[in-house]
């Protein structure tokens, strides 16, 4: 798919998303799909018309988007703390912390060795969840259920060792699934427990996934 075809595809996608969103609000989620599809297309070089200057401009625009994103987060915090005079909900803390952390970790990990960092991070948390499941439930069916977290992390890392990008994608999907499970079972847990749970459950596969995917071969021109 060349750039022009891709742009037409995006326009059609957005129009369909608008119409469906008017019909049912849940279809708003369709808007987010191109955000994740675009890097995949570029990584596979399906969109081949992007040259190095255009790529540079794209990174620059992403950086400006990142800054404006923080401006919006700042406004949300100001709204809650100064106008409504109440604590912001846990989701706002998450959207404030996560992108900054990813940016810092990506930069730092690449200075050391991104792939090693990603693999060690996911392995450590995978083993941690396995031990946690075993210690919590002993040898029982509960251990098997909870081991799924740890085992899926370790399995994705093993795939990542052979096929870096595929492993990265698996880890990203896992982080998304973990996030949904975490948010679904929030119950009456307090906000900060949810944040800590988020950092030990969802963040490791997300960071590892990003690092493996982004540094995998054929991403750079």
């Amino acid at each position, binding site marked *: 798919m060349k750039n022009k075809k891709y742009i037409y595809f995006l326009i059609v996608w957005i129009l369909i998303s608008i119409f469906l969103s008017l019909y049912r609000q849940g279809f708003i989620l369709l808007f987010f799909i191109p955000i994740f599809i675009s890097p995949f297309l570029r990584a596979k070089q399906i969109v081949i*018309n992007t*040259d*190095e*200057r*255009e790529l*540079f401009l794209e990174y620059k625009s992403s950086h400006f988007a990142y800054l404006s994103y923080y401006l919006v987060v700042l406004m949300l915090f100001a709204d809650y703390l100064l106008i409504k005079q109440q604590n912001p909900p846990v989701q706002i803390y998450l959207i404030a912390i996560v992108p900054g952390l990813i940016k810092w970790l990506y930069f730092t990990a690449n200075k050391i060795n991104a792939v090693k960092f990603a693999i060690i991070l996911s392995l450590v948390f995978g083993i941690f969840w396995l031990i946690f499941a075993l210690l919590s439930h002993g040898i029982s069916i509960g251990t098997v259920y909870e081991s799924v977290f740890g085992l899926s992390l370790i399995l994705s890392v093993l795939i990542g060792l052979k096929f870096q990008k595929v492993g990265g994608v698996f880890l990203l999907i896992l982080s998304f699934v973990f996030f949904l499970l975490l948010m679904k079972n929030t119950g009456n847990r307090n906000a900060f427990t949810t944040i800590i749970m988020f950092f030990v459950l969802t963040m490791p596969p997300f960071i590892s996934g990003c690092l493996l995917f982004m540094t995998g071969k054929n991403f750079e021109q």
Partner: protein
Amino acid sequence: MITKVRYFRFIRGELSQEQLANLVGVSRQTIVAIEKGNYSPSVWLALKLAKTLNTTVEQLFILEEDINEK
């Protein structure tokens, strides 16, 4: 940095920006940006430009400090 892309483009049979862009595999806007000095190309692109224009990178792109020294 001073670029001589435009000069060498004309020496080499008055190549248009579009033609040069096609030869090196970038967009015309990229050639425009390089000629205006708004964009510094990567080593890969600089070498490719020099090869296409039958010259060397040093002749195509000159550091301002080198001109001052002369």
